[in-house]
């Protein structure tokens, strides 16, 4: 296994528009943010870009703020910054949890949310939360800006709606303050990637769950919502039977899409998706 990347050209633009221009000019160019997905892929020669466009120092892509309760997270925010942000903890506690569980401290201090979502690794944690939380991704490319809901952004294994030359600029998440939300994961013992990760967002009225969003990652090629599980939880009082039914519904929803490997075969992952839904509900209500 090679541990050095192929040769490449390196550019460090000083503005977002310059970065987009560079990327638009070269089909074989790739944006470099924290580099914690791209560089390992390059080292293994799974990725051999001609040019790296280092966007890591663009202030336009940084910062975490709230606007009328909506969280706005610059794409270059690192996992560690997000995990530590009081705004994120207040408005989307599950995202603070998830980013705090990514990799190890070195990865969390360099890896960025934008880079993570753009990479769309199925075993990654943040896509599951951004999807369950109903997040919106703001993109900018050679043809201007647009926004895409997380529901439409993740397409398949390592595949998103990002078009050539487009960058994620920021991620907006409606405030979940007042809603119960949690992310739980079963981590691979060596890589710490999610074998299964589940995020739930529950709107409660007294004891009744009036709306629910459920997403699962790790087990599936992309972060995936479970409409049947959401249906089982909605209108219930989250009693054991309802949560068990939701877990079963989640397992059925993803049944045909579950991936397996030597450590966690398909059957095991499928079963764990149900277990972790139950644990996510427990964690959200705790």
């Amino acid at each position, binding site marked *: 296994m090679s541990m050095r990347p192929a040769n490449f050209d390196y550019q460090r633009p000083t503005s977002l528009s310059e970065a987009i221009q560079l990327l638009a000019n070269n089909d074989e160019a790739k944006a470099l943010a924290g580099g914690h997905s791209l560089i390992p892929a390059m080292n293994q020669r799974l990725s051999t870009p001609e040019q790296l466009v280092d966007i890591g120092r663009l202030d336009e892509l940084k910062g975490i703020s709230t606007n009328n309760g909506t969280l706005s997270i610059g794409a270059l925010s690192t996992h560690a910054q997000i995990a530590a942000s009081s705004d994120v903890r207040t408005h989307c506690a599950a995202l603070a949890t998830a980013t705090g569980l990514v990799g190890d401290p070195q990865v969390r201090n360099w890896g960025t949310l934008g880079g993570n979502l753009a990479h769309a690794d199925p075993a990654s944690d943040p896509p599951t939360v951004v999807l369950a939380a109903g997040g919106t991704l703001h993109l900018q490319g050679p043809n201007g800006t647009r926004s895409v809901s997380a529901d439409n952004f993740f397409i398949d294994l390592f595949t998103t709606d990002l078009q050539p030359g487009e960058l994620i600029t920021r991620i907006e998440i409606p405030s979940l303050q007042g809603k119960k939300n949690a992310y739980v994961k079963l981590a691979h*013992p*060596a890589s710490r990637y999610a074998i299964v990760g589940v995020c739930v967002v529950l709107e409660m009225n007294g004891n009744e769950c009036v709306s629910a969003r459920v997403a699962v990652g790790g087990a599936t090629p992309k972060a995936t919502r479970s409409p049947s599980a959401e249906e089982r939880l909605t209108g219930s009082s989250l009693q054991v039977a309802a949560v068990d039914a939701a877990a079963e519904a989640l397992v059925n929803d993803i049944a045909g899409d579950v991936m397996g490997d030597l450590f*966690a*075969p398909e059957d*095991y992952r499928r079963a*764990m998706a*149900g*277990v972790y839904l139950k644990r996510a509900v427990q964690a959200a209500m705790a």
Partner: protein
Amino acid sequence: MIGQSMTRIDALGKVTGETPYPGDINLEGQLWLKMRFSDRAHARITAIDTSQAEALPGVVAVFTAKDVPVNEYGLVIKDQPVICGPGSDMPGSDIVRTYMDCVAVVVAETDAIAAKAVKLIDVTYEDLPAVFDMEAAMEDDAPQLHADSPNNIICHYRIRKGDMEAGWSQADVVVEGVYETGYQEHAYLQPEAGLGYIDEEGRVTVIVGGQWVHEDQEQIYHALGLPPEQVRVIYPAIGGAFGGREDMSVQIVLALAAWKLQRPVKTIWSREESILHHHKRHPMRIYSKWGATKDGKIVAAEAKVIGDAGAYNYTSNKVLGNTNLMVTGPYEIDNVHVDTYGVYTNNIPCGAFRGFGGPQGAFAAEAQMNKLAEALGMDPVEVRMKNVLREGSLLTVGTPLPKGVTIPQVVEACAEESYWRRGDGAWHLNRPPQPDNPALRRGIGFACGFKNVGFSFGFPEQNWATIELHGGAEIEEVIVRQAGADVGQGAHTVFVQMTAEAVGVPVEKVRLLTHDTAKTQTSGSSSASRMTFMSGNAIRGAAQQALQLWQDEERPAIATYQYKPPKTTPYHPETGESEPNFAYGYVAEAVEVEVDIETGHIHVIKVVCANDVGVAINPQQITGQIEGAIVQAQGYAIMEHLISNEGKIQNPFLSTYLIPTVLDVPTEVKSVVLELADPRGPWGARGMAEMPFIPLAPAITAAVHDATGVWFDEIPMTPDRVVTKLREHGIGIL
């Protein structure tokens, strides 16, 4: 000096990084060697084209089978070609029998060139039918791997004691099980590496990590067709071994290349190369049936053991010999019937690994014992105390154990120091409370074990030491020559402590010469928990003689002593009757686990290990061995799952073959060190390094059963296996 936790003599150099390991050593003008391994599990090599590799700039030489003077090696049976392929006059050496067979060796100016060149070697294979299941390999129509082993059977041991029919007729309860144990990878810190060169006296010399310098020397000179004195082996610091360095890896090819080229030649295996190309712990399938009376006395035990040796013997016939003895546990049983087979397959070879057949035997024996306790409604400690071997007890092979049988004391100490209390003349388990979370279940398990110290069954056993006393009016310096390998266990520190004690000088006056065939005589391998026992007796003998010479005014006073323990004998081919061993170690363990019945994760909360070490020469090293063995055995029982598909290992990385890390180790390990002297041991010391490994897996399965009510007869108990099995029993997720 005995009984002191003296700071290890190798500590400072290792923690500062100054101490070189084989991969750290370089010589001017050295070349780099890379091995090309087989691409087939079983095939005849009809042609091998090395021309493209030879044409690559920087390649100095390519060696194939035709270049090996005596193309065979093997620790017990020389059944493996050094290099497989055409052109060798050794019959059968044109056949690869496993993916870990070497088919060519490239020597080049750099490691990178050598790595590139091995890929340019074109090997033409003619596939042969292969067999991967150990029982299928014993069938009459199975492909035969070695001409002299019909039905691929390397060894078949029998034990016939008493009268089985009479035994079964006395039995009120009978318990049965089919036990399956998996591979285990040694995963020592330092992958194989070495440097071959011609020393100042013209000897082909190999610097390498191993467990027995003189055995490595023998393997090398045999294959190179050289006289012994023409070959020298030196060990620098050794980065762990656990049995995994008993057999050859890079030694012979380094010597071959250095000898042919008369230049230094170096190689370092990657972790992947290491996992793919050295032997493993034997997977075994054990059919076991035991009967007992209602008051808990075992009256009959029957077992059939099959061990997958892989493509070559390595030490399989010895390992299976141990399992044959240990599969009925440390119990006195009147009626015993055991058949044990070691079988060739086209899988990776298996050989020595801490416990040497003991862990597999104990896994079945202790599970049987715990099932008996359940069937009888009797406490597992109580039922053991009714059956354990005692002073004068006869083994299954019809002879008594050597004096100093302490398994009863060990079992009781473990029970008392863990979860049991004695009351009303019996042992009672006190369970801690269950956690509030219904997904988590806690349980307690118990197991015990015994194992030989030293070589068994008639294998020649001896250890040489030389003591030199230098000085005038008083002894100013003591030089001890003792070849024994310090594989990380601290043997060399113990040699110094024992020498200081035997001579009666402070440790500062002792200098150790070791790890070099040119400076020492053989001491046997660092294996079988034998090195302290054997070297201590040799050092003591040499010291006594040297002190006598010193009294007689000889300066320097030099004495060499060969310690030979009482002779052992091989199994009788029909009955198994024998005097198998000259010394034993005894151990018992109690384990508390927490099982997540939904995810299948088993957390080992606490292990209490009672181990009789005879005398703790260095107590800190004893507890280090206990804790290390427990973590390694925990990996064996729960985590370490080496997956082989038609002979090809699927997970040759530490990212996919998972071993315990600091996040996985038990929350608490309590070492209960008993010092009940072995009359034959130096200062009473017993061997101990393997003992704490042996009963852990069955203690864990017993604890998991206590927690869930389900018996796991297969290890490793990986999360997906646990979930699958619990679901079959309607536990956890449905």
